[in-house]
């Protein structure tokens, strides 16, 4: 396994920007996820690393080797495609063996490695099936085996779970992650699904409009987003625009004062208040600093969502669904409540939401 280094990588399509000046290092054995809305440049980046697309400028290195101008077939990356891209005219075993065949292994050597790879993804019994005779999940595992059997220098995942149903997705997510860690695969993954990114990646790269917004661990991005876009993209977030009023308060554009702490490392152009719904506690009655009126209560199973109107602003709080008898259980629309949070938790960030 190699380290992947991307330097000032840029791709322009005519006058429009695909990716602009991307710098990123993926360490050996690390899984880094590129996360962003469609058109943010994440897939373009992956394709440039795989060698399917020539960059306009910048470099791609595997360890210290510059592969920027190396054709895709000489790069030895192992990619799992969103569509799986299994060869429809070849059996599962032949699909897995294709890369070995291209590397000049003879039939008997191939057979052993293919059997091992299929065993790794628990598909030995389906080796002779054609792709169309396999379920989506099975096809996905063939694609996984096919990419891994060649001992790739870099492992690439392009929205690997998006074609699976929800239940399978959670399962395969863990499976891929376990495999990636066990084999120590240097992995670059592309996804638009924040849950997928948060649960699988060692580090996340949030992209938008071809540029990197923030790079960090899932926790860093979730708890300390650099801007409102990142805050909103990695999870649900209350974002209110306004300005810091003093050391302990934020004034929203609607004139509401919200408790915050002295910002350390806060940017001067911070013009938004960001607070995750699950960080807000609700107390019935009108006792607290921030008082409002319940607008809507939505039961979501384990959790319940409360939409609370405070003056002209609206905040969403998500709490564990209360048991009968708890004070929150009796809450209904139009009741008065006060909202509370640890004043160290809200982030004041620049609002760059487009």
């Amino acid at each position, binding site marked *: 396994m190699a380290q992947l280094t991307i330097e000032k990588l840029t791709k322009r399509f005519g006058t429009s920007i695909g990716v602009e000046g991307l710098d990123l290092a993926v360490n050996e054995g690390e899984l880094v996820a590129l996360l962003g809305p469609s058109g943010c440049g994440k897939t373009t980046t992956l394709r440039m690393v*795989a060698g399917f697309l020539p960059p306009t400028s910048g470099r791609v290195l595997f360890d210290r080797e510059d592969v920027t101008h190396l054709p895709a077939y000489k790069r030895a990356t192992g*990619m799992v495609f969103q569509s799986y*891209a299994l060869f*429809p005219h070849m059996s599962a075993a032949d699909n897995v063996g*294709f890369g070995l065949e*291209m*590397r000049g292994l003879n039939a008997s050597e191939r057979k052993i490695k293919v059997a091992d790879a299929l065993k790794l993804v628990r598909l030995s019994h389906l080796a002779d099936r054609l792709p169309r005779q396999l379920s989506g999940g099975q096809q996905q595992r063939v694609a996984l085996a*096919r990419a891994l059997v060649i001992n790739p220098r870099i492992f690439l995942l392009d929205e690997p779970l998006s074609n699976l149903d929800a239940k399978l997705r959670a399962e395969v997510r863990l499976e891929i992650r376990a495999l990636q860690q066990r084999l120590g695969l240097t992995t670059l993954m592309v996804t638009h699904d924040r849950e997928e990114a948060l649960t699988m990646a060692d580090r996340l790269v949030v992209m938008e409009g071809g540029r990197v917004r923030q790079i960090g661990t899932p926790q860093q991005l979730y708890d300390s987003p650099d801007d409102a876009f990142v805050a909103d993209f990695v999870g649900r977030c209350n974002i209110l625009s306004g300005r810091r009023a003093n050391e302990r308060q934020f004034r929203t554009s609607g004139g509401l004062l919200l408790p915050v702490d002295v910002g350390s490392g806060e940017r001067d152009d911070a013009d938004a208040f960001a607070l995750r719904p699950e960080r807000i506690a609700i107390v019935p009655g009108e006792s607290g600093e921030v008082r409002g009126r319940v607008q809507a209560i939505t039961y979501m199973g384990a959790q319940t969502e409360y939409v609370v109107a405070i003056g002209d602003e609206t905040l969403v709080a998500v709490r564990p669904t209360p048991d009968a008898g708890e004070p929150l259980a009796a809450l209904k629309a139009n009741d008065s409540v006060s909202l509370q949070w640890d004043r160290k938790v809200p982030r004041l960030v620049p609002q760059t939401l487009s």
Partner: protein
Amino acid sequence: MALLVVPACLLVLALLIGPMILMFRISLNQFSPTQLMVQALSPDNYIKAATDPYYQQIILATLGIALLCTLLTLILAFPAAYWLGRMESRWKSLVVIATLFPLLVGNVVRSAGWMALFARDGLVNTVLMKLGVVSAPLEIMYTTKAVIIGIIAVVLPYMILTLSAVIESIPRDLEYAAANLGASGARVFWRVILPLSGPGVAAGSILVFVLCMNTYATAVLLGGPRFKMMAPAVYDQFVRGNNWPMGAALAFMLLAVTMAFTVFGSVAFARRYRTG
């Protein structure tokens, strides 16, 4: 709803099957130079077509030219079809129309133009001589070469469009996946693109082979009076020789050989690429 199919069926029955039955009956008659057609029930015409070296040679030449033209057309058409099939430009429909453009010019008109181009004192020879590339005019007209070039020019659009439709349906990701696994461009072609283009190769080749087997105007105009293919030979028997029985028998021979090769080719192909 089923009734709506009736008019088309009747038309086919009346204008295709009917005449074919009549023709088959005629092919069993016999020919006399004085009485022309004599009623009979004999396979003599077929035996003659199959054993007489003159007809044998025509059948073999036609078959050879058709097979060669099909192969050459396939080879020439594939790169163009690939390019067209992978094209994402908004000009694509314009390119498709441009591909079809040669078909707007009838075979006779086109061949006449080529006669002007290829003649001893035609454009090609004039230019080549002026440039000093050749010292004596090339013999292009009235050769097998001219006929093959002429036929390919006519059938190329059919092959390109049939192939490009199939190539377009092959997901681009399969090429990327093959490259990702270490396949160079040539190996991506042989291992992925070509096998998956199978249905298009089969359909295009059959279409083109049938067209080649039945070439008439191109063979007559570019091949000249001594060049013989099946379709002109059938015409000769009917019109010049007034020998309807022999003409009918030759027509059925042409049909039989074409069908035999088409069926054989499709079955062999289906066995080779049993995919779907």
